[in-house]
């Protein structure tokens, strides 16, 4: 029983394989086109053409439609001669030659492009087409030009879509498209019977086009579903095997007529078939051709063209172009001149011999007005004996110019004659003047005014005097030359000025003082805009501002001082009163409102002769007697006389300030001595040093960065009363950063820096944006990441310019409130081109104490840009950027660029000096002192991370005397040459060129020297590795975990470059002594059988032990997994951390 079942199933499967279920499979592209397998269905039989050619059969239900059509402006026209087409005999050839230039092929390509051709197969009608091809090919009068078949296979779901595409896109008229319902019916009928095989072909109406002149009429070969009979006609006979042809005759009588024409007679296509064309154009597809399309059931069909739909378009053309009349084009093909924006030529109805492509030029012409023709410059002129008069105002064709625009020359009555004889009528209208240039016969007042007068224009009236009126612009206006041709409505002066003159610009002050009423609202005239040039109408908008208060007047302190007064800070919010006066009075008003008399006096104490005198004098000034003397009204001159020692000698930095000591000697105020420059240079230098040493209490930004103070400098500029403190910082980033155009990873620069963040302490602080820690990496891929893969990234930059931006907040916090009670302005130092300031604070401190928590903040915005190399994209991966291999161009070129928003750009090179600064202008005792604080950033080479000579130098790992100092002021390369090679470029040698202290100058050494001198910013390591032959980059050593680098005398030795760090030695060697007490990272058991297997594996490995079995983190070359371990995991203890899926599992041991 079981055996039987098996046999049954085997047979069933065999049958399934051998006999695929036709109902379940669409046709593949690879299906053979052997249409010979397509069985003919009853009744078609063999038919004969009148020329004796045997036409065997056309396949059942196939209705070959031959049409040549043109689609323009979404409307079909049928023109067999419009499109030259080449000969293609099958689709494959057409594709192969890539010469799709016919309409049909274009359409084919269009459909394919649109995705509606699900599968293009070889032509199942090949036999049929071959026949047709052969037949037409041998007919010199009507060679077949081309045919293209388009097929699509479909499913239930896209049947509608496909058919719509075919029918709607090819529909003749948008109002007569195949209805939705019809299409749905077709689809339903095709797919309703899942067991039957259907073959559906629908096509466009047949038009068979004979050749030019003489032609033969060809095919209408149709079939229908009923009985699968074939119906076809030729010029000799009409074969009707069923009702299909009757349909044709019924709906297309003209076609029938054509078909029955005699091939031997001269025949002009379509002439007698206009109605047929019209029918084609406006046929009701739902009713007229309902029997033309449908599904034909194939009986005994063995082919696999299951559920395949197609449209076959055959295009024919004559050997030459047919020439028709214009009317015929219009009648037969719907051509109109209107569609070309033209008018019919005068002989349109009789003009013949026009080809389709010449219709628009030969049957149509353009119309214009007489003036347009006359002024076209193309020589349209009246014929001899006629003169232009433009009497026809409508548009006329060029050929009508003479008759429509010209009049016979007359013996003219000139303007002068008419005026002489008809003085009453010879009057120009208002706004016009006499101009007798035209030679026209003037017979009436109308003609006189038309031809003998001209309108006033600006240029005509300009500076002209008419009736004692001279036409000039007003004083505050000027003549506008752009209005020269503008017509002036009358000869009134006011009209001239209004029409032809424009405002002139004057300064706000000029308008303000013009006395013509240009004023602002009370107190809003902005004296700062006094020199702004404005039009009169713009005065209010551009010369007036908000109500002015004292503190808003720029440089109010300087303004007051310049006027021998001082700024009265108590009136900083006072409004400046109405200023409907002159600029001078405005200034006066400001002075009166905001400034006050300088009731203090300041005496410069020249010097003290000696320290003893200095002490003495200072004590004196602080003495109560001094105050009493001042209060008693003793003048300073008297002081000088009494204390000459205190007012003589070198200049010092103290001043004496007393209130109203001269003008108000009886003032009760107590005199005091105020240090003129409380914040001395030394004070600030000390303060900065303190800050730079990181002694602040604020938070620090943790970056893998090192900064060190290099140099602080302070100076005082007498002329500008400027204290300048400058500190240079040497900062570098330990991240390896590659520069564009440089080999990856071989040149590093410091990118960013850390400045101690002393928000609660004193002095500068640096506060980057919170997002500034986003690291930017770049990787070379062959395309931009997909949206899905972008989710691996925090940020990505796909344009080639990658901007970075940093906001730095510089804060200065004062312990001792140096500006207490004084006016202080704070502004940014924008001297450096590299600093872009976005915010400027203009701070006035008046009587407001700046305590320790007070901070003057200043935000500096730094922008840098970075251009990605070609084919590189920059990404900020969230953790690991595991890119699919489809992106692989060179995924190993994965480089950390750096941080995108830090003040040191990744583009800055060693030696670049950037600065950011802040300046404070303090008015101390009404004298301005400018304090400048400035920080310089100096990026440095990455190699500079160790102050020792590098590997491959003559003194690797050593720090020769002076080497570190050299690094502070010179490039690393120079210091290496001078200190690690005993000086100079001539002492640079490749490592292998020096043996036991004896060096030779090999070619490699010369290359090394050239590399180091080329100024290409290559690092020393890069130069050495690219120029010299390096034997072994590292040596193998067994070590003791207790004392790994014992040295000769037991006190240790210089460690290798890669171990030259005590932290590394401690972490990775000495602290790992207890590892032997822990679970191993890997544990392998090798017995005889395992050994044998591994030996077999080794034997089979082509590349030996170096066979690449590693799979690494994409592009990074790290966390590499070995396929060998995976294959032999049975010999590994799976409970060890090394076998964990987590690469970092062993870190937690």
């Amino acid at each position, binding site marked *: 029983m079981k055996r039987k079942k098996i046999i049954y199933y085997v047979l069933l499967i065999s049958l399934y394989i051998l006999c695929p279920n036709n109902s379940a499979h669409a046709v593949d592209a690879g299906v053979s086109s052997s249409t010979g397998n397509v069985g003919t269905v009853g009744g078609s039989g063999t038919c004969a053409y009148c020329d004796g050619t045997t036409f065997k059969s056309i396949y059942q239900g196939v209705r070959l439609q031959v049409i040549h059509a043109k689609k323009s402006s979404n409307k079909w026209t049928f023109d067999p001669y419009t499109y030259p087409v080449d000969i293609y005999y099958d689709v494959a050839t057409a594709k192969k030659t890539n010469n799709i230039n016919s309409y049909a092929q274009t359409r084919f390509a269009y459909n394919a492009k649109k995705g509606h051709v699900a599968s293009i197969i070889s032509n199942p009608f090949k036999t049929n087409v071959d026949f047709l091809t052969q037949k037409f090919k041998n007919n010199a009068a009507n060679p077949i030009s081309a045919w293209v078949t388009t097929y699509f296979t479909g499913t239930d779901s896209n049947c509608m879509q496909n058919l719509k595409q075919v029918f709607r896109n090819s529909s003749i008229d948008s109002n007569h498209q195949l209805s939705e319902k019809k299409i749905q019916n077709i689809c339903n009928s095709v797919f309703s019977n899942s067991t039957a095989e259907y073959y559906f072909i629908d096509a466009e109406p047949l038009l068979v086009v004979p050749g030019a002149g003489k032609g033969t009429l060809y095919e209408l070969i149709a079939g229908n579903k009923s009985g699968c009979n074939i119906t076809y006609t030729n010029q000799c006979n009409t074969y009707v095997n069923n009702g299909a042809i009757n349909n044709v005759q019924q709906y297309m009588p003209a076609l029938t007529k054509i078909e029955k024409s005699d091939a031997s007679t001269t025949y002009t296509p379509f002439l007698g078939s206009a109605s047929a064309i019209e029918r084609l154009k406006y046929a009701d597809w739902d009713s007229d051709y309902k029997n033309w399309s449908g599904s034909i059931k194939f009986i005994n069909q063995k082919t696999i063209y299951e559920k395949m739909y197609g449209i076959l378009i055959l295009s024919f053309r004559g050997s030459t172009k047919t020439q028709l009349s214009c009317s015929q084009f219009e009648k037969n093909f719907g051509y109109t001149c209107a569609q070309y924006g033209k008018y019919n030529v005068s002989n349109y109805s009789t003009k013949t011999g026009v080809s389709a492509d010449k219709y628009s030029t030969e049957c149509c012409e353009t119309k214009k007005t007489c003036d347009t023709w006359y002024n076209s410059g193309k020589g349209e002129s009246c014929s001899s004996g006629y003169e232009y008069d433009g009497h026809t105002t409508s548009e006329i064709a060029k050929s009508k110019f003479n008759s429509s625009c010209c009049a016979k020359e007359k013996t003219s009555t000139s303007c002068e004659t008419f005026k002489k004889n008809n003085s009453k009528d010879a009057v120009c209208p208002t706004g016009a003047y006499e101009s007798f240039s035209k030679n026209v016969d003037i017979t009436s007042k109308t003609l006189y005014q038309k031809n003998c007068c001209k309108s006033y224009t600006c240029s005509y009236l300009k500076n002209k005097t008419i009736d004692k009126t001279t036409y000039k612009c007003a004083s505050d206006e000027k003549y506008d030359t752009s209005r020269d041709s503008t017509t002036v409505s009358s000869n009134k002066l006011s009209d001239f000025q209004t029409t032809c003159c424009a405002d002139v610009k004057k300064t706000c002050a000029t308008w303000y003082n013009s006395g013509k009423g240009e004023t602002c609202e009370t107190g809003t005239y902005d004296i700062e805009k006094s020199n702004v040039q404005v039009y009169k109408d713009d005065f209010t908008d551009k010369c007036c501002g908000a109500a002015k208060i004292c503190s808003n007047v720029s440089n109010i302190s300087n303004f007051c001082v310049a006027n021998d007064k001082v700024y009265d800070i108590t009136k900083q919010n006072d409004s400046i009163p109405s200023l409907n006066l002159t600029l001078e009075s405005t200034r006066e008003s400001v002075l009166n409102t905001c400034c006050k008399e300088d009731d203090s006096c300041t005496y410069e104490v020249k010097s003290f002769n000696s320290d003893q005198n200095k002490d003495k004098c200072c004590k004196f000034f602080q003495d109560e007697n001094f105050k009493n003397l001042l209060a008693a009204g003793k003048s300073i001159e008297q002081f000088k006389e009494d204390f000459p020692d205190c007012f003589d000698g070198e200049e010092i930095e103290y001043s004496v300030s007393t209130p109203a000591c001269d003008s108000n000697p009886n003032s009760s105020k107590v005199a005091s001595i105020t240090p003129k420059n409380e914040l001395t240079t030394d004070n600030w230098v000390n303060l900065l040093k303190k800050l730079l040493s990181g002694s602040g209490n604020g938070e620090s930004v943790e970056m893998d960065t090192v900064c060190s103070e290099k140099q602080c400098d302070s100076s005082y500029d007498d002329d500008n009363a400027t204290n300048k403190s400058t500190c240079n910082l040497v900062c570098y980033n330990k991240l390896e950063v590659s520069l564009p155009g440089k080999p990856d990873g*071989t040149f590093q620069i410091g990118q960013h820096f850390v400045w101690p963040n002393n928000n609660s302490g004193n002095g500068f602080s640096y506060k980057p944006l919170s997002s500034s820690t986003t690291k930017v990496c770049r990787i070379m891929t062959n395309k931009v990441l997909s949206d899905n893969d972008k989710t691996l990234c925090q940020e990505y930059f796909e344009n080639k310019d990658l901007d970075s931006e940093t906001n730095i907040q510089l804060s200065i916090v004062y312990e001792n409130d140096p500006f207490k009670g004084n006016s202080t302005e704070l502004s940014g130092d924008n001297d450096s081109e590299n600093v872009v300031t976005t915010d400027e604070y203009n701070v006035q401190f008046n009587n407001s104490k700046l305590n320790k928590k007070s901070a003057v903040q200043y935000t500096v915005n730094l922008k840098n840009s970075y251009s990605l190399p070609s084919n590189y994209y920059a990404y900020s991966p969230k953790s690991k950027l595991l890119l699919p291999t489809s992106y692989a161009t060179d995924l190993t070129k994965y480089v950390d660029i750096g941080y995108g928003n830090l003040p040191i750009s990744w583009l800055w090179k060693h030696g670049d000096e950037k600065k950011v600064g802040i300046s404070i202008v303090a008015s101390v005792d009404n004298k301005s002192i400018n304090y400048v604080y400035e920080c310089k950033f100096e990026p440095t080479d990455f190699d500079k991370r160790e102050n020792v000579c590098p590997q491959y130098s003559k003194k690797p790992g050593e720090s020769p005397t002076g080497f570190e100092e050299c690094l502070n002021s010179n490039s690393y390369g120079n210091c290496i040459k001078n200190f690690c090679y005993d000086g100079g470029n001539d002492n640079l040698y490749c490592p292998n060129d020096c043996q036991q202290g004896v060096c030779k100058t090999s070619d490699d050494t010369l290359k090394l020297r050239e590399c180091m001198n080329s100024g290409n910013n290559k690092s020393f390591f890069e130069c050495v590795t690219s120029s010299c032959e390096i034997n072994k*980059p590292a040596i193998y050593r067994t070590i003791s975990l207790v004392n790994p680098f014992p040295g000769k005398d037991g006190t240790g030795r210089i460690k290798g470059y890669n171990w030259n760090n005590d932290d590394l030695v401690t972490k990775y060697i000495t602290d790992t002594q207890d590892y032997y007490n822990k679970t191993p990272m*890997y544990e392998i058991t090798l017995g005889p059988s395992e050994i044998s297997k591994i030996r077999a594996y080794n034997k089979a490995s082509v590349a030996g032990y170096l066979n690449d*079995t590693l799979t690494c983190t994409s592009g990074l070359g790290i966390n590499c997994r070995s396929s060998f371990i995976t294959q032999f995991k049975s010999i590994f203890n799976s409970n060890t951390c090394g076998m964990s899926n987590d690469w970092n599992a062993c870190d937690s041991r």
Partner: protein
Amino acid sequence: MNESFWGIGVISFGIIGVFFILFFQDVTNTDEHNYNLLKETTEAAMYDAFAYDTYNQTGEVRIDREKFVESFVRRFAENATLANTYKIKIYDVNETPPKVSLSVSSSKTAGFTGEVVEFNIPNKLDAILETPY
């Protein structure tokens, strides 16, 4: 007869003595062999695992962890004797800077007075790759 038994006893004792000598000689040789095998194999495996690509790009001396393990096992198996069962324990593989700690032990068993005695012969090794200065 007694002499005969003595003779047999002496011969037997000699055979047993030779057995002991050969056994411990084998143990000693295995120990020596294992150490040299461990040392040489470790060196070769570390060089096999050397990441030249990284070195050429950055000058950084680095080894690939699993490449070291793979190469070590493959090389070790190639030179180990089929008579022993080896237990390889890799305690540490540090990629940068390169350092490894591992041990190899092989076992020998012997029966004495009906009791099976296993002789473990462990060897430990710590090694680094160091740039030459």
